[in-house]
């Protein structure tokens, strides 16, 4: 038993070290690179009822890169974010709001989520 362990130990050790090395390597390869995002706050006038917000939410979700829209009804604000490279222009956002039947106000960009 002792001789068996003695003879296989170096091989096992190499195996363990190799698998450790490859697992670290593959983990690094799979780790998502932190995506840089831009956060957008849109002031929307006329957004008076919760049932009207649905259409606006759907329209804003059509903007490239937008996967979530948070609508604050009482404040008349919509918060959205996109990857930096897909950042929509103010004109593009304004068109979506106006085409949705509302009036657009101030549009702000930030590299951090709005409070």
């Amino acid at each position, binding site marked *: 038993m002792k001789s068996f362990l003695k003879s296989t130990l170096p091989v096992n050790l190499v195996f363990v070290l190799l698998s450790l090395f490859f697992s670290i390597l593959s983990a690094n390869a799979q780790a998502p690179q932190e995506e840089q995002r831009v956060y957008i706050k849109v*002031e929307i*006038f*006329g*957004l*008076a*009822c*919760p*049932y*009207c*917000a*649905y*259409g*606006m*939410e*759907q329209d804003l979700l059509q903007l490239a890169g937008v996967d979530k829209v948070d*609508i604050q*009804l*009482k*404040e*008349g604000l919509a918060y959205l974010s996109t990857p930096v490279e897909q950042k929509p222009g103010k004109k593009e956002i304004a068109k979506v709001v*106006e*085409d*949705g*039947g*509302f*009036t657009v106000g101030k549009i702000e960009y930030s590299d951090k989520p709005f409070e």
Partner: protein
Amino acid sequence: MNKTFCLLIALFLTGMGFAQGPPILTGTPVMLGLEGNGLRTFGKLILKEEGFVYVQPLGIPYNISPKFQVGGILPFKYVKPGEAEAASGLTDASVFAKYQIFKRDGRAKTFRILAKVQHTFPSGNTLSSPPIGAGIHQTYVGFVAGRISSSIGLYSDFGYVFTSRKAADRFLYNFGVSLPLLPPKYPQKQLNTLLELNGSYLVPLDLHTLFLSPGIQFIPGRRILFEASFQIPVLFRTRFNIIDSNKTRYVVLLGTRFLLH
């Protein structure tokens, strides 16, 4: 009647301070959300002095642009006049168009006015007994106005119905107030209370009728709405003798609206 009215007002005022939903029997100038690109249907049971009428329309609005909506209404009707035999079938179909002529938006509030035209075709069966269709063309021309904020919705519509063959032309008017019972958040469940007044004046008969209509709405999610309304006649005045059996005792409405996308 006064006691009922006071109780309704008191119940209604408890909801003040939150957001509200679309009116049930009055037109809304907002052609968005559950008011556009969806389906609307309701069952309306009209209890007469003798017999009853059940109407189930299916309305399909389509927004051509945020300012312009067209649509169609296809109603099913079941008429049971007292002891006589009942008749049922698809009744007069309508097409309508609404165009926004004024809009003033503010933070969590809006004031809008629409012009509305609706034409009803005599597509229902008039040979059945009792007849299902009116057998005449009817054209409604009117306006829909509303001031909606996150705390209250005030709605009104009024217009004139021109009929072919000099049948009973009439003036229609509706007022509605909508109040929420839950805070104005999106998305979330909504529970709204409504109080509406629905009037009509039949010109040739000099018949003025007015209904007081309390209602309630439940919006469980983003795309569906359930509503119920109870219409009580508060005025039925004419200088002619109208057959009493045709007088409405009350109306019960149960409906739903569903967004297609």
